[in-house]
């Protein structure tokens, strides 16, 4: 039986990579909560995960020529997703679209889901160690 470490951990490594990138994006939104004309950005996590699982599916626009215009987004390994703009519920007068409460709750949620992935991988490592030791 062939053993593949990448498959053993399932979607969690890609999930953690994407979650850490999303943490950065949300952190930037919170840091710019008072910046005039700043537009809050986020990614469609579900879509990005699907893209990571099916690399041949519909993803981001590829730039194959130096004069192609980049759409802007995240590209890491088999992950590629575009950055979207958040729709503000209450637009502010200075053009800023950050709702700091929403961003904070998203950031915390993202951190907890990251932690969940860490726990799943830890459990997997523990069971693998049990299998290796054979005790």
């Amino acid at each position, binding site marked *: 039986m062939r053993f593949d470490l990448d498959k053993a951990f399932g979607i969690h490594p890609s999930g*953690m*990579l994407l979650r*850490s*990138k999303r*943490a*950065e*994006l949300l*952190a*930037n939104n*919170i*840091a*710019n*909560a*008072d*910046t*005039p004309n*700043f537009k809050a*950005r986020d990614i469609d996590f579900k879509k990005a995960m699907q893209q990571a699982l099916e690399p041949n599916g519909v993803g981001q626009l590829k730039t194959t020529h130096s004069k192609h215009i*980049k759409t*802007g*987004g995240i590209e890491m390994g088999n992950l590629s997703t575009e*950055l979207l703009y958040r729709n503000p519920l209450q637009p502010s007068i200075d053009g800023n679209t950050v709702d*700091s409460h929403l961003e*904070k709750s998203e*950031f*915390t949620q993202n*951190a907890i889901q*990251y*932690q969940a992935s*860490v726990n799943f*991988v*830890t459990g997997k*490592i*523990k069971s693998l*160690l049990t299998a290796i030791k054979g005790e």
Partner: protein
Amino acid sequence: MSLFNVFDIAGSGMSAQMLRLNTTASNLANADSVSKNENDTYRSKQAVFATLKNDFENESGAGVKVTAIVESSAPLKQKYLPDHPMANEEGYVFMPNVNPVEEMANMISASRAYQSNVEMMNTSKQMLLGTLRLGE
């Protein structure tokens, strides 16, 4: 590693909010500084925030920075106090255009934003430490 960037972003946010808090402190401290003529009078100072970009291709920003500290162009307050030692020939003294209510609101906003940045840094620290302990 994206999680390390969170530290830079939160750090830039904290430093920008601290600068804003400093200008607020300066404005409130000088709220009653009178002077003889219009040019020497203290004017309310305000920090201007802008998004920091790390490079052109990566559209997501890398924090916040203070690009300038501008002086308010609001009209100065003039008070008729002929007995005041700083009064001019017509008996007026000039007061700064600081609005204490506005400054108090600014102060609270800056301190709350600072707190958000600290919490964000703490959360990402927990995330990183959790990753370091992976498999334990």
